[in-house]
């Protein structure tokens, strides 16, 4: 396994320039950006040498936003406008979020995803996250001295479709070309596996600030295969803070707190939790706005007792993932600990006891996800030649299904299916002459639709009049490599079709993203046209390069006439790339995409034939 691959003289990489690609860990508490330089993955620090960016955004009345440490410094002073742990709200409605009442924000209950009223206006969690991503993008561009060709953004493996879509939207809004959404434990497995040349079955125990994931992977030469994943997207280090906070309020017999005091005590609670990792007792002192003085000491025994249910709550998903993978504890070769919250000694102990082995802590639990994401970004950007790279096989964490009669959920794609995946199911009408059928797409494991997460509703109209049960409606679910779902429905006899990218009911429509982009440009002093030109040029240039290398490798698959159509479209795009009309570049890019459609399909077929031929010769 080649983490520190150094090219031998004479065996250097292909002549193209290395593309600038980064991995971003968009965390609940802290975020990081990392990249691969000279074969080594490294986290990029800010101008003051700090690798972490606190995931905190403070909105100011003039519309600007402060991100990271400056926002953190003002959070007790301005709690209503300082958004912490925004990841908990991604793709979530008001009723989905626990302890919402204790958060000091002015929530707006928007359909699908909640929003927050701030001094700079109403903001969606997508916009808040985009502020964090924008700071990381700028940090990377400054440090790498160039614009980024793409980014891999990590998400908790247990994130559902709504949360994933929201994350991808935030990336777009921050001006990033999102190469892939990568599951956090998978990213950690890449970093760990490559660094240690690990082979065998490993569990990744990832307890972050707000989410918990447990993934089981089979590592072998050049392949990372996720066997099963499980977790709890509402459980993390924040919950431990919350327990300590409640303990403080109870011990000090405090009356209901002002938002400022609540934020102050939550901060003290977090500090005490961190202190207890290395000490037997933590002092907790704070002066509240009413003048009252809190002076307590929390010992580690009490801390363990008040958080014991949280620790054991993580073991349910661990057992479930083992069952789903058909594995027992004895099959697991190592348990890699990821996420700052795994520093707590009681977590280390519980995991060690469950797996009957010492957990692996040899990578910095705060950085390992960003490093793995950077390595994957390097592969996706095409910076590694074949043989140096690896194959990543990931799964969907939660079953995807559709509502049937009686409010029951019928599973179409079961959890732990390797992605990309597609599955089709046939449905029929239940009334004579029924001309429309509505579909409700859900995600989750429970039998009742009301216990699952609702993803989208859509309707197939114009079904020709038929007797009940005669229509044949094929519903197809397609999950892409980011774990995002698209659904289509088609009535067979008439060919009537309806499809939905499972987005509009909770996510942002393209128009929303455009509006937000325009808003953000007003503050960022960036020119919309310059940005569009830059983006379309990058995309067009990428397609030119890809088409050229495809023609070079497989040009023989084309007949003379087909070849000249592609050559013409290629020449047209190249000519326009030199000019400044971003719309014309986009049109020419689309035209070249269309012109290469059947060539692309033939190339793929040829690739499979070569794979088969190679093997048959090899096995003779």
């Amino acid at each position, binding site marked *: 396994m080649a983490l520190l691959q150094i090219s031998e003289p004479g065996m250097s990489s292909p002549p193209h320039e290395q593309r600038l690609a980064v991995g971003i860990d968009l965390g609940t508490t802290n975020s990081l950006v990392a990249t691969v330089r000279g074969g080594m993955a490294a986290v990029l620090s800010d101008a003051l040498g700090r690798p972490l960016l606190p995931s905190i955004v403070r909105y100011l009345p003039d519309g600007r936003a402060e991100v990271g440490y400056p926002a953190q410094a003002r959070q007790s002073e301005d709690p209503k406008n300082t958004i912490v742990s925004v990841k908990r709200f991604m793709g979530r409605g008001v009723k989905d979020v626990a302890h919402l009442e204790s958060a000091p924000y002015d929530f707006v209950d928007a359909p699908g995803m909640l929003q927050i009223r701030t001094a700079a206006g109403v903001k969606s969690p997508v916009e808040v996250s985009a502020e964090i991503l924008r700071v990381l993008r700028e940090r990377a561009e400054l440090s790498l001295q160039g614009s980024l060709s793409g980014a891999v953004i990590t998400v908790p493996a247990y994130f559902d479709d709504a949360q994933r879509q929201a994350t991808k939207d935030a990336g777009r809004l921050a001006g990033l070309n999102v190469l892939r959404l990568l599951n956090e434990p998978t990213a950690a497995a890449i970093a760990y596996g490559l660094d240690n040349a690990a082979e065998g079955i490993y569990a990744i125990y990832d307890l972050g600030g707000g989410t918990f994931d447990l993934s089981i992977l089979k590592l072998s030469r050049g392949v990372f295969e996720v066997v099963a994943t499980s977790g709890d997207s509402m459980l993390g280090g924040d919950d431990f803070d919350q327990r300590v906070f409640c303990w403080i309020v109870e011990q000090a017999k405090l009356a209901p707190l002002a938002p400022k005091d609540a934020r102050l005590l939550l901060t003290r609670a977090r500090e005490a939790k961190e202190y207890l990792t290395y000490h037997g007792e933590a002092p907790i002192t704070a002066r509240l706005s009413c003048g009252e003085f809190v002076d307590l000491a929390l010992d580690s025994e009490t801390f363990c007792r008040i958080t014991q249910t949280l620790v054991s709550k993580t073991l349910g998903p661990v057992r479930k993932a083992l069952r789903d993978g058909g594995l027992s504890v004895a099959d697991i070769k190592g348990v890699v600990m990821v996420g700052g919250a795994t520093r707590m000694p009681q977590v280390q102990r519980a995991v060690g006891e469950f797996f009957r082995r010492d957990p692996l802590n040899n990578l910095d639990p705060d950085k390992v996800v960003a490093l793995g994401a950077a390595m994957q970004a390097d592969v*996706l950007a095409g910076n590694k030649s074949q043989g140096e790279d690896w194959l990543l096989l990931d799964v969907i964490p939660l079953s995807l299904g559709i509502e049937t009669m009686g409010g029951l959920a019928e599973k179409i794609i079961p959890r732990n299916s390797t992605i990309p995946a597609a599955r089709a199911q046939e449905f029929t009408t239940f009334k004579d002459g029924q001309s429309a059928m509505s579909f409700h797409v859900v995600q989750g494991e429970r039998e009742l639709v009301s216990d699952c997460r609702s993803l989208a509703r859509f309707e197939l109209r114009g079904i020709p009049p038929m007797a009940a049960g005669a229509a044949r409606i094929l519903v197809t679910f397609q999950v892409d*490599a980011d774990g995002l779902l698209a659904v289509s429905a088609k009535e067979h006899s008439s060919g009537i079709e309806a499809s939905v990218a499972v987005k509009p009911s909770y996510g942002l429509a393209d128009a929303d993203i455009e509006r937000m982009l325009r808003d953000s440009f007003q503050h960022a002093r960036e020119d919309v046209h310059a940005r569009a030109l830059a983006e379309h040029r990058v995309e067009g240039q990428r397609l030119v390069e890809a088409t050229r290398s*495809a023609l070079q490798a497989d040009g023989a698959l084309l007949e003379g006439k087909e070849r000249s159509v592609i050559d013409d479209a290629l020449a047209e795009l190249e000519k326009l790339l030199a000019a400044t009309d971003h719309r014309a570049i986009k049109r020419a890019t689309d035209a070249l995409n269309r012109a*290469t459609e059947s*060539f692309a399909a033939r190339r793929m077929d040829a690739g499979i034939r070569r794979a088969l031929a190679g*093997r048959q010769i090899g096995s003779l």
Partner: protein
Amino acid sequence: MRNHFELFGLTPAFALDAVALERAYRDIQSRVHPDRFANSGDAERRASLQWTTRVNEAYRTLKNPVQRAKHVLELQGVDVAFETNTAMPPDFLMQQMELREALEAATQDKNPDSLGRIRNDLVAEKRALEAQLGKAIDESKDYSGAAGLVRKLMFLDKLDAEIDLAYEAAE
């Protein structure tokens, strides 16, 4: 290519060369996977998505003994008809009822140990049926007999799923 075996260069049979299947799967995936085409145009990305999806589906089908048997039988023109053909031998049904009663009791007691025992019994029963299935398909070519065995196994899979739910309820 409707034949999942052909896709991996294998001959249709119930007995499976798992190593050859995995090697072929990885070979093909390393050529068609979307990670190889993150920088390509829309056309190649779409073709990659379609192929990877198809390869994953074929791999999943062949790895699972019940799905693999169903697929072999389909290639022979035999429909397993699990939904419509519900006739089962009485002794099999008796045994199922006993297993179900045991499961119900274990669910009510929220007892993971007895769930584990039921699962072990179930796995043993499945292995025995799969051995018979292999003989019926690959040796005696008794396809209708094989279809009956597949229906039994599908029955057991349903029970397996219920054991999973019981585990979750017990936790």
